[in-house]
């Protein structure tokens, strides 16, 4: 119910935005609509990554700083596979097969990597102070960034022959950017947008089902509430945490592929940017809350698009950080989150 109250609190804002557009010319409304479509699609991708942050935070209270960079590695993996199989040439049904293949590869890869990171880096520090864990996560993020940089230097055609490792890489356009709507609507909703929605929505539904009604989901909620009590009830806490990292990693892997397909370019540093967007989304929605991560992701996606369109693209990152800081200062529990108090 709280969730609905908060959403209704947002409604006037959204109405105000539309009213503003109506006051402008027709073209203004078209631009606004387009910004909203792009913003919502990017927001879905951000939301998918944000879920990875929020799940890990919910269960071990760690801001998993390396999550964004994990996604970067996921898209580099996808690009490697695409390059090795010559996917630039695939189109139509072939393109669809390619997308599914990339999604599965990247998700598996990211899930395995995220699990290994937890096993090797975070698990030995379970009982250490929280800031120790956070500093390790930052260290881990830097290592992953550097691995992406080296990966970009692979002597493959898709990586530009391995000459300019740090340069952004083009990602093959497996999904077309033609609008699916009639021209008269003056609104582009492309196959790429459709792909984003048709990948993210089922994943979110599946995740909700998993958390709400499976044994694992129950165990995850129990560990999030109280690890000690959960382990006394016979739950293998380390395995549940490992599973959380696997799920978060897999979602990050899916997100990395649709990000690459939607934006058609990837670079070794993008994880920092998308990671911060996703983290902001998680905090805005209320960290630890999965519906919150989705709402936050959509809001951040739209905020970015509006800032690109109505302020200036070069200020967009600052706008996102300002939202982050303002949320943390004025409403640290986020829009949908439970009130958190500093444990003493």
């Amino acid at each position: 119910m709280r969730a609905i109250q908060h959403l209704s609190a947002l409604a006037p804002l959204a109405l105000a935005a539309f009213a503003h557009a109506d006051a402008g010319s027709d073209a203004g409304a078209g631009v606004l609509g387009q910004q909203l479509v792009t913003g919502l699609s990017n927001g879905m991708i951000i939301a998918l990554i944000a879920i990875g942050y929020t799940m890990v935070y919910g269960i071990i209270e760690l801001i998993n700083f390396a999550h964004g960079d994990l996604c970067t590695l996921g898209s580099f993996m996808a690009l490697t596979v695409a390059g090795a199989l010559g996917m630039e040439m695939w189109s139509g049904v072939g393109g669809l097969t390619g997308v599914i293949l990339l999604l599965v590869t990247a998700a598996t890869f990211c899930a395995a990597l995220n699990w290994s990171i937890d096993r090797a880096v975070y698990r030995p520090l379970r009982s250490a102070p929280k800031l120790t864990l956070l500093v390790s996560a930052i260290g881990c993020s830097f290592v992953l960034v550097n691995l992406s940089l080296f990966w970009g230097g692979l002597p493959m055609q898709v990586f530009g022959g391995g000459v300019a490792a740090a340069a952004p890489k083009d990602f093959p356009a497996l999904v077309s950017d033609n609008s699916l709507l009639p021209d008269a609507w003056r609104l582009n909703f492309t196959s790429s947008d459709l792909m984003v929605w048709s990948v993210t929505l089922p994943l979110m539904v599946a995740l909700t089902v998993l958390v709400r009604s499976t044994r694992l989901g129950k165990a995850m909620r129990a560990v999030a509430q109280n690890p000690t009590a959960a382990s006394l009830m016979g739950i293998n806490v380390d395995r549940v945490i490992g599973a959380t990292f696997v799920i978060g990693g897999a979602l990050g892997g899916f997100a990395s592929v649709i990000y690459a397909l939607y934006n058609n370019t990837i670079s070794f540093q993008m994880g920092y940017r998308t990671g911060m967007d996703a983290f902001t989304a998680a905090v805005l929605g209320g960290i630890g809350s999965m519906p919150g991560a989705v709402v936050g992701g959509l809001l951040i996606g739209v905020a970015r698009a509006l800032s690109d369109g109505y302020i200036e693209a070069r200020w967009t990152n600052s706008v996102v950080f300002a939202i982050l800081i303002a949320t943390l200062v004025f409403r640290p529990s986020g829009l949908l989150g439970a009130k958190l108090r500093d444990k003493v």
Partner: protein
Amino acid sequence: MLAGAVLLGLLDRPLGLNLLDPMRGVLVFALLGLGLNVVTGFTGLLHLGMAAFMAIGAYAFAISTCDIYPFQIGFWPALGVTAVAGALAGFLLGAPTLGLRGDYLAIVTLGFGEIVQDVMKNLDAITKGTQGINPLPAPSLPVVGEFGTDERPWYWLFLALLVLAVKLCRNLERSRTGRAWLAVREDQLAASCMGITPIPVKMYAFATGAALAALAGGLWASLYQSTGEPGNYDFQISILALCIVIVGGMGSIDGVLVGALTMIGVANIALPKLASWLQAQGIVNPSNVLGSPNNWKYLVFGVVLMVMMRVRPDGLLPARLERAGGGS
């Protein structure tokens, strides 16, 4: 440590070591590390945006000295302006945010770092955008004259300022405020029961740390006669500062000096040497991504943080806690 630095300054020329040039970087970053040490080491607040204060220092120094602005107050007064600007920025960031929990505060400082960088980049009417502000004047002293390309006066100046900063930090640590910092770090609840109000105490730490970081930024800009582009003061620098404090040992002043020597030594001296050796051996060629020392920095910083947290979270030279009633 400092005696060793003096010795190095004296012996560098006769022994032909040519280490004073890179050592200037060590000294400036030691100053930055001292600033972060006040915030993270003494007070226990994880700060991920020290580069922002360095940038604010560099730009404050540049705006008060460069001849494209009306102020041109000269090197020494500008250092004062730099420190004050840093302290003010520290207050501004700290005032609304210091009530936050530890990890949230860390993220806010990170966001602050990014915003400052964006502002420097985008307000090009004032900050000259990516060109940076230049040329900046070098300091001058009665006997030495104006500092030029000779690295020795710079080295001695930076060393002298560092010695002053070390002295300042040691005194602060033992002062009433310093003891309040340590108390808040150890147990905020207990500290507030003993009559310490945590937020002003933390604010003071923020401002002190920011002032030291700003000084480091001002000196850096003066050394290169330019603020450089805003992108130079990025997250990597903040993390470098964090590595310096963590390697040495949080809260340990000697530790910061060791940390700066280790980290800058690795990043600016050992990595380039390793890269040129690898190239000479024909193992990698310069166009390869592995061949440039810069491309290894993230990996080095990351591994340092992870390994230190796992193996020696107290650092190489851990701070010793004085026992109650002890002290010198």
